């Protein structure tokens, strides 16, 4: 394969958008872009991916006949909210724990959806009720939780000293704290 063709191939591959021949030339330097594109199209014929032109711009895509294999329903992964992450951490470190205890430790109320999200994700489960006034429902983590976070057991959670050493126990400055409390409220 020619050097120029390699450069064109790499540029189109790495680009986050289809590229026009001018844009390709800007990356690949001196050479016959049109000829290189023709050669590459030829090379990729019969592959599982192909080089295609759409409205004067070029990009690679998977071969249409393989669409069914790839089940291309792009699942949007969502980042766990700060409130949910903190709640999960508290459950892990303090289980079994009631909702009131979680709120006491967080210093902020948790909205109803927070624990639901964690249970739906399969990381938190209910763990009976505590005998005592109000018989509060208790929460604990699941085996899936350990698996997901690569923990052999709950004893593998970093201790307070470890957190401190890793710089994770630094008090937030007031402004950041305030901001955070506000966004928590909005979330709820």
């Amino acid at each position: 394969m020619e050097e120029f063709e390699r450069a064109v191939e790499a540029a189109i591959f790495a680009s986050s958008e289809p590229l026009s021949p001018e844009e390709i030339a800007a990356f690949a330097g001196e050479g016959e872009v049109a000829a290189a594109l023709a050669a590459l199209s030829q090379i990729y014929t019969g592959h599982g991916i192909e080089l295609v032109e759409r409205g004067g711009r070029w990009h690679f895509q998977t071969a249409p006949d393989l669409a069914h294999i790839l089940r291309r329903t792009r699942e949007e992964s969502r980042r766990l909210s700060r409130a949910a992450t903190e709640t999960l951490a508290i459950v892990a470190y303090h289980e079994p724990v009631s909702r009131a205890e979680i709120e006491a430790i967080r210093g902020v109320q948790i909205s109803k959806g927070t624990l639901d999200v964690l249970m739906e994700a399969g990381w938190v489960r209910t763990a009976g009720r505590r005998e005592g006034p109000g018989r509060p429902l208790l929460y604990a983590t699941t085996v899936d939780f350990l698996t997901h976070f690569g923990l052999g057991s709950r004893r593998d959670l970093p201790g307070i000293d470890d957190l401190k050493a890793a710089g994770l126990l630094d008090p937030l400055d007031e402004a950041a704290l305030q901001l955070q409390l506000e966004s928590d409220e909005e979330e709820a």
Partner: protein
Amino acid sequence: MGETDEFELPRRQSDELTLSLDGWEGPLDLLLNLARAQKVDLHQISILALVEQYLAYLEGAKALKLEIAADYLVMAAWLAYLKSCLLLPKDSTIDPSPEELAMRLQLRLQRLDAMREAGARLMGRDRMGRDVFARGTPEGLRLVRKSAWVVSAFDLFAAYGRVRARTQPAMHIVARRAVMTLEDAIQRVSALIGQAFDWTALEAFLPVTTDPAYRRSALASSFVAALELARQGRIELDQGAAFGDLLVRSTA
């Protein structure tokens, strides 16, 4: 490797080391750089010469009246000890032997040097996102057996650290307030009442003060003290009208 500024080069190239301890990450770092300045393979460095260099370096820093951190001095003391052992006639009863200690030091320097080198080589590799690139627009696959919620173990631990930091018990310091205790008031009123055989306003027993808070406290305590002394039959109380002056008199 085109980008030397990608990471700070750990060693100074010049033979003359500037007399500043700020640039060093601890005594071992300084020792390694001194050893490097000998311009020989780390296996062949002269430990004795290295010790001399280190001690001379610290002496120089002292002469400049620089603050020298404790760990540098500890290392200096240890090296001075090692040096004296190496120079003394061999004593087979010393365990570990000075040669053994020197070898351990050399090993530590080699280990650190190896990791420093390794770090530099890692940083100089063809790195994803800088030298090599993944596909720009992957169509994406349907993620099988994968939770839609993205959160890493680091996020989790950091979240807990955050909670703990946020809810660390706050220290409350109660400011000292000037008060007159009931005991003080009883003592004071009973001492002063001995001199008052005529009706006297309670306020007259209060100490002279410019602090309104202390005056309020003294008034309240003295009032309760008066009630207590009246209960004990030691004084009499009289008040002409509601909110009028409260008068006290000794019963004796």
